[in-house]
């Protein structure tokens, strides 16, 4: 029996976040299928198993525990849920299974010395926040122009929404803009008072740090209160079709962060041609190919496959790598533009180069804008914020974690 590279996918396809889950995991699986069609990674096929978590930490842990021992042992896991990720965080090093947290989770996990098995790939919340301020500054004609401006941070009142606060606060002090923090109680299906407050404050920009149904409501309520959507900048969890389509025209002009450039790419064409044309696609609705969540899933797939490839380079080509070895692969990832071009995804995601110190590997993002039908990138180049600042915060925070957990920070081999 040929060796298979088995990956655990505790996914969610029902419940409040089903729309995101089905797009993201659909993208991953589409890419896996594509790779397998062309013979796998150096002949090693990728296999995976899904388990419904309903975005619930307790069920997620059960899924992880169940999936991890199947098929000779999982070599990678991605729950796409902060709660589930935290629930299994402690177990990873013991089980020797790396976990990626693509675009979510605690930002300080990028410190591989403290979190050897955790990979917040591409970019973390802190770098995103820094990039957002940089973008807003650029829009004004330079970050120094932010002085005296008012920026509202409208956030999901949870750990997720509060995560960027240290960065935003530091930057507000540094650049002299006023930061107004307005929380929205989850799930955020009513935001009249917040938007009245915003209208009252007359801010120059609104950062929408939202998740789930909160986003559509925010945009709709902004419209209802006559607040220009052009002044709203969402996080990447507020920047998918799922967030804008239900608002109809209200989202026209609204922009959001992303780590994928919207558009069409050869890899997507291949997915269409080789999979969906033959009824092998994972999405129920082929129109969602290339949507934000789907592309995010494809990107995850690409990075993982490249990590497998890297690990195979080191530990033996054409052989299944173990979780430990794949961890090495993830830590020594170098997906540059050439590599991206080779897999048909050049420009779709930033180049990613990881190391023990930097499990994130990039920190570059783009801004996209909704034109009423689809997302369009409005920054031609990848934006990177004040990385020195985020690095400092990262060191402090992960050191505190290490102290609490009695971990001696060190790089794994």
């Amino acid at each position: 029996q040929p060796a298979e590279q088995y990956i655990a996918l505790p996914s969610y396809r029902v419940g409040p976040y089903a729309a995101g889950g089905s797009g993201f995991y659909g993208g991953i699986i589409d890419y896996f299928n594509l790779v397998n069609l062309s013979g796998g990674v150096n002949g090693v096929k990728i296999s995976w198993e899904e388990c419904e978590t309903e975005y619930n930490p307790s069920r997620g842990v059960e899924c992880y525990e169940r999936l991890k021992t199947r098929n000779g042992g999982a070599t990678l896991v991605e729950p796409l849920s902060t709660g589930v990720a935290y629930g299994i965080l402690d177990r990873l090093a013991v089980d020797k299974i790396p976990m990626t947290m693509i675009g979510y989770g605690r930002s300080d996990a990028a410190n591989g010395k403290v979190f050897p098995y955790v990979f917040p790939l591409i970019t973390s919340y802190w770098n995103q926040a820094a990039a957002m301020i940089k973008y807003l500054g650029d829009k004004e004609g330079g970050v120094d122009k932010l002085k005296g401006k008012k920026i509202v941070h409208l956030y999901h009142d949870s750990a997720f929404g509060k995560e960027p606060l240290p960065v935003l606060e530091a930057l507000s002090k540094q650049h002299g803009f006023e930061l107004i923090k307005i929380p929205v109680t989850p799930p955020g299906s009513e935001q009249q008072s917040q938007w009245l407050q915003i209208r009252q404050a007359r801010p120059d920009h609104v950062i929408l740090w939202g998740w789930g149904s909160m986003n559509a409501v925010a945009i709709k309520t902004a419209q209802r209160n006559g607040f220009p959507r052009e002044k709203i900048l969402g996080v990447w969890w507020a920047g998918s079709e799922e967030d804008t389509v239900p608002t109809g025209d209200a989202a026209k002009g609204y922009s959001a962060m992303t780590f994928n450039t919207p558009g069409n790419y050869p890899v997507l064409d291949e997915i269409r041609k080789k999979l969906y044309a033959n009824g092998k696609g994972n999405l129920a609705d082929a129109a969602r190919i290339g949507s934000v969540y789907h592309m995010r899933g494809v990107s995850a797939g690409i990075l993982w496959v490249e990590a497998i490839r890297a690990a195979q380079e080191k530990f033996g080509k054409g052989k299944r790598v173990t979780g430990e070895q794949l961890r090495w692969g993830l830590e020594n990832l170098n997906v540059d533009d050439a590599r991206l071009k080779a897999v048909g995804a050049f420009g779709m995601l930033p180049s990613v180069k990881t190391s023990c110190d930097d499990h994130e590997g990039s920190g570059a993002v783009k801004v996209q804008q909704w034109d009423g039908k689809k997302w369009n990138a409005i920054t031609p180049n990848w934006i990177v914020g004040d990385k020195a600042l985020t690095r400092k915060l990262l060191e402090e925070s992960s050191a505190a974690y290490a102290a609490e957990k009695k971990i001696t920070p060190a790089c794994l081999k």
Partner: protein
Amino acid sequence: MNINFFFEVLIGGLLSGVMYALVAIGFVLIYKASGVFNFAQGAMVYFAALTCVGVMDKLGVSLWIALPITVAVMILLGLSIERVVLRPLVNQPEISLFMATIGLAFFIEGLAQLAFGAQVRKLELPIEDVPSQYLMDNYNILVSQFDIMAALVCGLLVTSLALLFSKTKVGRALRAVADDHQAALAVGIPLQRIWAVLWAVAGMVALVAGMLWGARNGVQFALTFVALKALPVLILGGFTSMPGAIVGGLIIGASEKMAEVYIGPIVGGGIEGWFPYVLALLFLLVRPEGLFGEKIIRRI
């Protein structure tokens, strides 16, 4: 204090309250008729809205054709709920019935997503959710015209249902059922038929709520959560009162917005989640049966 802003907050709050009341009505309907707290109301709101847009999508028809189809589906749903879930549970402990509605909620949620998929959809009603120009120009007050329509619909619904309950013999029979299933059966009230009708009506109310909330927030799973907004309204207004639902809605809506805007910033904000509950709770300490709820009879 900026008085204009104050009024905006107040009016915005009142109108949000109307939206809550819309959902609360569905709860009152079922509670009055069976003494059961219908946990599945939120799921029904989602189901109704999703069915409507799903039908539009799948069959490619207009809203005006999809609506009657959805109405039919909701009626069918109501009838089957009575037949399959409630009938075997007549005269059982309230808490078991409550639990059954929870099971029902899961079932409906699964069914809705199975039939029409989990993706978020938009629902466009002929009326746009933008500030009313007229009010803006003449009174310099910002009110969405959509909200005004919602208030009208809600008022109409409450009035007609309140009349149903207070003026007809069915209304009286329903109150009897809520008091004592067994005795209601004994006097010949056709419990089954009444429940079937009521659940069908509750389905319709859910449809109205689903359309309005769906148009406002998009048709998505989170619609099931709007029930959480309706609960404080219910306890404040009283589980058994139609007018209570609307008055409670207005009070809750206005006061939660006031609290968020004027108290929120002092304590770090985000108090909208619990403030209505605490408010309703404090109120209950004064009147344990809510504003218009039926007095709880404790006698030996």
